[in-house]
């Protein structure tokens, strides 16, 4: 039977609900040491001297390494070769690693790290994006030039809206912090186990610092407690650290970051600043956008160039817009390097364009939804990069679905009425309801700048009992990859789902399959599996086509029944499962598959007897994409997923507090391989988007910041640039109390190249939530925020300003009214 499109329960959840899933910190190896890291307290400084003598005397210390002890290159290879593993001579951000310790226990390692003294000479630090831009500390500059925006903006018959928007750092806040274990192998290689998204990035980092060949650096992903992009580029650092320490000591080394350390030093979503000017005609056609887009990259380039590139490619949103000028800059500052985060450079610029859409609509006198619908991309249209959309454009249907499910037109009137009634209550009810829209599209996969990272491989091996091992190079990080790829493999082979096992990702099993990012896993690994399965199926067909299996099946059944009756089969054996339909793992009867399972087993038996090769490597290469570096134009992605959100909020105008009541969120995903995992992605993404829009930001120390550190208990000024909120009590993510009603809606405009028509879904859910929230706050209260998160403080301040602006204006207005009379 076909499993694609069905709500198959996650096969990996049985281990997770029993506590038997093995995350990296659950693993131990014989004679394992523990690591600790000495980190820079300064945003920028010169290292004058590192004294390790006292630390070396601590009992149980086995190795202390600094930059000069690195046998390979002191480099974490990413896009630009700028990031050392250990600071050599100069530190460029607070928390940059300076020295590594391995010791018998974690506490001995930490004690030794504290005993290492580093003398620094403080250097001037660049702590703001503006300062970095003024000093031309530009990591990357991308341009987009289309049409003649200047001509549009100089016209008198257009509506122009211009604003500057600010977006904050966002912390991934995966519940499992980063962690790695390196194990030296007897043949001289090193195996690294860890919490990670991209095994091949980690492999490159380990090979770089150890100086080993890549085939000696094996990376195995352990069950990973959330990623969201935070375990894309950043895990290369802890992996390289434990690998060096394992190489130096010849013993396994474990390093698990504490929550505060993880929040201080690991990557985050780039803070953004967007200067956005839009022009539309009076009848509601979006004509031109003119944008300067800045991201604060932090001290090293990491993935900033491509994060920025994704932002610029989606600069005008999912709308037709023929005249475009965008300059996008990633700016180097002396702060923690930012990296990948779900949405990857889009949430920042989408916040800006979706606010602009509302403000333009208001100026034109159109409903926010009408204005969007009028300009929405459809088949045959061109994107902002002049990519002609030939197929699979479900954007309008996402709008239609949300409008239908929310009963928008009626809801809007009902809210207006209810707000009016609240104002006239005595005393007036301070709560105002409001609705806000947010739309986006998302280029699936890495696109034209992905290069050799674009393809993905898969290995499919069928054992003689019919069970199937599927190995891929992408990873399960909670998003549901194991489930979805199992379904694709089962349907591509035509075998029951329970025969499929997705192996833990291991760099020694498949070739470099690129990273688990960019909503590409279903598409790329799915196609690679389908490719391998096609090869095996055609070999199977050669001996099985038109073959009558009934005799084999009857024989196998009678043998199995006899064996079972004699008590020879283990209750949990595959045979037993098929014979006894009552076997129910987690109440799931697998009995109804038995006929299909028998046929599959018989087929495999015949193939084995006929010496058919029941294994294959699959390879998927995406369709051609193009990009012109001068103009920024091209068919930059293979296809796009589309999303529309409508949120209903309630704002307390006395406290500034916003409560999210309802969210309708529709996504064109091509084909939902599994609607249940799809909903999981949507609900989780929306809630992370609520965090981004309303709650989450990092506060950095300025010159005057004083606070007591938890560890030392000593008061005193924090160095400028230090993150002050590095715990869940100060960096607030949505809790179970913050969750609205979420209506997840799936739209399927099949993508012919995708497996079973699938595109990607991982990221669209988070991207356009924040602007929808701020638009809804504007709708409820009249305040126009240009900065997120819309914390109660910010909303309250804006309400106060708005009130004082109104009182200043009102005399003038009444004079006008008088003169009109």
């Amino acid at each position, binding site marked *: 039977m076909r499993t694609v499109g069905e*709500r198959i329960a996650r096969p990996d959840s049985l281990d997770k609900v*029993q*506590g038997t899933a093995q995350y990296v910190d659950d693993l131990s190896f014989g004679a394992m040491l523990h690591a600790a890291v000495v980190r820079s307290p300064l945003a920028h400084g010169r290292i004058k001297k590192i004294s390790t003598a006292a630390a070396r005397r601590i009992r149980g210390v086995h190795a202390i390494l600094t930059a000069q002890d690195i046998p390979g290159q002191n480099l974490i290879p990413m896009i630009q070769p700028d990031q050392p593993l250990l600071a050599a001579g100069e530190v460029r951000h607070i928390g940059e690693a300076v020295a590594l310790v391995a010791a018998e226990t974690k506490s001995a390692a930490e004690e030794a790290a504290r005993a290492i003294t580093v003398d620094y000479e403080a250097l001037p630090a660049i702590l703001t994006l503006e300062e970095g831009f003024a000093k031309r500390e530009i990591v990357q500059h991308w341009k987009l030039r289309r049409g003649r925006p200047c001509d549009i903006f100089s016209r008198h018959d257009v509506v122009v809206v211009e604003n500057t928007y600010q977006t904050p750092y966002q912390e991934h*806040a995966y519940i499992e912090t980063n962690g790695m274990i390196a194990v030296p192998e007897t043949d001289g290689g090193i195996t690294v186990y860890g919490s990670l998204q991209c095994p091949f990035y980690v492999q490159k980092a380990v090979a770089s610092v150890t100086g080993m060949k890549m085939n000696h650096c094996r990376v195995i992903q352990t069950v990973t407690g959330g990623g969201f992009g935070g375990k894309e580029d950043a895990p290369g650092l802890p992996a390289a650290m434990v690998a060096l320490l394992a190489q130096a000591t010849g013993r396994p080394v474990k390093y698990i970051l504490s929550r505060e350390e993880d929040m201080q030093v690991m990557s985050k979503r780039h803070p953004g600043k967007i200067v956005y000017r839009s022009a539309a005609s009076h009848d509601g056609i979006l004509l031109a956008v003119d944008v300067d887009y800045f991201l604060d990259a932090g001290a090293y380039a990491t993935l900033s160039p491509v994060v920025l590139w994704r932002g610029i490619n989606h600069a005008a949103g999912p709308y037709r817009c023929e005249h475009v000028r965008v300059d996008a800059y990633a700016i180097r500052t002396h702060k923690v390097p930012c990296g990948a985060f779900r949405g990857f450079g889009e949430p920042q610029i989408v916040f800006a364009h979706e606010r602009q859409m509302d403000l333009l609509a208001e100026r034109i006198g159109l409903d926010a939804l009408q204005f969007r619908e009028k300009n929405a991309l459809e088949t045959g249209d061109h994107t902002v990069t002049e990519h002609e959309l030939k197929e699979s454009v479900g954007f309008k249907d996402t709008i239609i679905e949300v409008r239908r499910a929310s009963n928008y037109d009626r809801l809007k009137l009902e809210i207006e009425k209810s707000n009016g009634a609240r104002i006239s209550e005595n005393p007036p009810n301070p709560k105002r309801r409001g609705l806000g829209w947010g739309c986006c599209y998302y280029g699936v996969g890495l696109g034209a700048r992905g290069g050799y990272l674009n393809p993905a491989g898969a290995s499919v091996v069928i054992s003689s009992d019919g069970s199937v091992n599927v190995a891929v190079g992408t990873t399960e990080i*909670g998003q549901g990859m194991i489930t979805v790829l199992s379904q694709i493999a089962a349907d591509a082979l035509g075998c029951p789902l329970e025969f499929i096992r997705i192996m833990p990702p291991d760099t020694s099993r498949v070739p470099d399959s690129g990273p688990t990012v960019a909503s590409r896993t279903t598409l790329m690994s799915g196609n690679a599996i389908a490719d391998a399965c096609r090869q095996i199926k055609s070999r199977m067909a050669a001996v099985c086509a038109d073959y009558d299996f009934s005799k084999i099946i009857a024989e196998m059944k009678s043998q199995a029944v006899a064996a079972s009756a004699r008590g020879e089969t283990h209750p949990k054996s595959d045979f037993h499962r098929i014979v006894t339909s009552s076997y129910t793992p*987690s109440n799931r009867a697998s009995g109804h598959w038995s006929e299909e399972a028998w046929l599959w087993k018989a087929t495999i038996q015949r193939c084995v007897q006929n010496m058919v090769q029941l294994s294959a490597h699959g390879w998927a290469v995406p369709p051609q994409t193009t990009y012109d570096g001068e103009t920024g134009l091209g068919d930059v992605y293979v296809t796009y997923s589309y999303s529309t959100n409508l949120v209903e909020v309630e704002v307390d105008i006395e406290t500034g507090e916003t409560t999210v009541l309802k969210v309708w969120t529709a996504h064109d995903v091509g084909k939902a391989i599994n609607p249940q*995992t799809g909903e999981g992605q949507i609900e*989780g993404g929306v809630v992370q988007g609520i965090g981004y829009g309303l709650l989450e930001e990092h506060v950095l120390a300025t010159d005057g910041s004083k606070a007591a550190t938890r560890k030392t208990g000593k008061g005193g000024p924090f160095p400028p640039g230090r993150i002050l909120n590095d715990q869940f009590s100060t960096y607030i993510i949505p809790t179970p109390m913050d969750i609205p009603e979420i209506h997840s809606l799936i739209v399927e405009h099949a993508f012919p190249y995708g497996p079973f028509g699938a595109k990607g879904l991982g990221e669209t859910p988070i991207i356009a939530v924040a602007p929808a929230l701020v638009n809804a706050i504007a709708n409820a209260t009249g305040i126009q925020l240009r900065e997120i998160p819309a914390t109660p403080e910010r909303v309250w301040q804006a309400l106060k300003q708005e009130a004082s602006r109104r009182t200043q204006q009102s005399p003038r207005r009444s004079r006008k009214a008088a003169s009109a009379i």
Partner: protein
Amino acid sequence: MAKKLKRKTQKVHIAFTLNGEPCEVAFAPHKTLLEVLREDLNLTGTKHGCELGECGTCAVLVDRKPVLSCLVLGLTVEGREVTTVEGMQLADGSLHPLQTAFADLGAAQCGYCTPGFLLTAKELLEKNSKPTRDDIKEALSGNLCRCTGYIKIYEAVELAAARMRGEAAEVPEEVVLGLK
């Protein structure tokens, strides 16, 4: 408590009930219950999320009440009854209805926060066999999850509660759709 402290090794020896079985363990007295469970008893189902009492990931039941195991010393459970995710199964070895419901509905995504949610929800259902959505939100409000957006967790607790009341012995239609 801590009567058997041996100065030389700096270890304490305590006895308590762990997942329904008598348990004796020796450990350094400064260790938290979380560390004792994971490091000295090898029960790694209980996870650490922050070790500051802020995320609920390490929740276990002590005398049937949820406790953040990162905030209490191992010493404090002497003579008491501790339940971890490893002890959630029913007497016949089958999964607890909460475990089944979490698996069936996809309420465990990355799964790292799951043991803490399961144990906190277990206590809720023992106190209140028919919790409202608001009761569930409040009971789970000390647990953080970053993957699910909590919706499927609420639904799983509701499904488990219904099954435990004997109201819906089967998985709802939509859930098993693919398995028919």
